[in-house]
C-alpha cells in the first residue's frame, strides 16, 4: 500500500514540473542571473510571493521583462532599478537604506546591546549579593566565637 502511495506521489508531481516555462539561455551566467532576479523581485499584486513563484498577470509580465532585459545584457542592479522605477521599492525584497527604514538595522542592534547591558548589570548585582551573604555568614560565625570566648570564663571557672 505504501509503495502504491509513493508511486502515486511520484507520478503526480511529474506533470507539475513539466508545466514550468522553458526559456532558452545562451549564457549560463545570464540564466543564473535570471533565476536570482526572479527570486528577489516581489510580485506587486500578491502580498508575499516572488515573481518566480506567482502566476499573477503582472508577475508573468515582470518575468518576461526580466528575461528580455537579461538577454539584452543588463546587470542585476540595472534590472532592479528598471522595476523600481515602475513598481516602487515594494518590488524588491531588499529594502533600501533610508530614514524610514533605518530601524530595520538599528532596532536589532539596539536590542542586542540593551540585552547585553541588562545581563552584565544583573550579573554584577548577583555577585554583590553573594558577597554580602558570605560576609554576613562569616560575621555570624565570628560573633558566635566571640560570644563563646567571652561567656566561657564566667561559666567555665566554676569548679564542677
Amino acid at each position, binding site marked *: 500500500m505504501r509503495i502504491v502511495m509513493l508511486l502515486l506521489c511520484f507520478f503526480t508531481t511529474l506533470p507539475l514540473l513539466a508545466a514550468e516555462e522553458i526559456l532558452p539561455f545562451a549564457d549560463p551566467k545570464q540564466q543564473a542571473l535570471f533565476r536570482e532576479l526572479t527570486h528577489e523581485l516581489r510580485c506587486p499584486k500578491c*502580498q508575499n510571493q516572488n515573481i518566480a513563484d506567482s502566476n*499573477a498577470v503582472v508577475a*508573468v509580465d515582470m518575468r518576461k521583462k526580466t528575461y528580455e532585459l537579461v538577454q539584452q545584457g543588463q546587470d542585476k542592479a540595472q534590472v532592479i532599478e528598471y522595476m*523600481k522605477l515602475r513598481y516602487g*521599492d515594494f518590488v524588491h525584497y531588499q529594502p533600501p537604506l533610508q530614514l524610514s527604514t533605518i530601524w530595520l538595522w538599528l532596532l536589532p542592534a539596539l536590542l542586542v546591546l540593551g540585552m547585553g547591558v541588562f545581563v552584565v548589570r544583573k550579573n554584577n548585582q548577583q555577585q554583590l549579593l553573594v558577597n554580602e551573604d558570605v560576609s554576613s555568614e562569616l560575621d555570624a560565625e565570628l560573633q558566635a566565637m566571640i560570644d563563646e570566648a567571652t561567656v566561657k570564663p564566667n561559666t567555665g571557672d566554676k569548679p564542677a
Partner: protein
Amino acid sequence: MRKLLFFIPFALFIGLSMFLFSGLFSDPRQHGSALVERQLPQFQLPDLMQPTKLLTADELKGEPYFLNVWGTWCPTCNAELAFLTQLRQQGVRIVGLYYVQPLDAAFGETFDLPALQKDVQQKLGEQGNPYQFNLLDEHRTLIFDLGVSGAPETFLVDADGVIRAHHVGDINPQNWPALAEAYQQLVRK
C-alpha cells in the same frame, strides 16, 4: 527611578500593540507609487474603437484627466462604470486604458479585436460610458510602465502630463471626495 524602570516593559507592550493595531486598518494594496510627480511615460497606442488612429502621451495634454485602467473581464471595473459615468456627466474628463489579459496560444486563444469592441460596446451600453475614448494596450506596455498591478487602477494626470495621483482599486462615493479635491485644484490652475 526604579519604579519607572518597572513600567518599561508595559510601555513597550502598549507601543507594540498600538503599532500592530494600526496595521489592522491599513490597506495592503496601497504601497506607494513610483510614478507620482513624474511625467506620463511615452507611448503610442491605438484608439480601441478606431484602431487606425494612434495616440501619444503628448496628444492627451491640455487639460487634467483621469486615466482609468479597466477591462470588461474585471468585475470591480464594471461596478465602478456607473459612478464614473455620473462623474463624466458632471464634467470630469476620464480616459480609458483598456487592459487586455494575456492570451494563451497553447489553448488556441488569439486576439480578436472585433469581438472585443463588441464586448466593450455592450458593457458600456449596459453600465454607462464614462470614457472620452479608450486606449488599447494589447501587450500591456503602457500598463507595465505605469506600474499597474491589476485592474481597476486610476491615475490623475495634470494638463502638462504629470501624474499627480495613483489610486488602486475602484472609485466610489466614499473615496471620491479626496480625488475630487485634487482634480478640482488642477482644473482651477
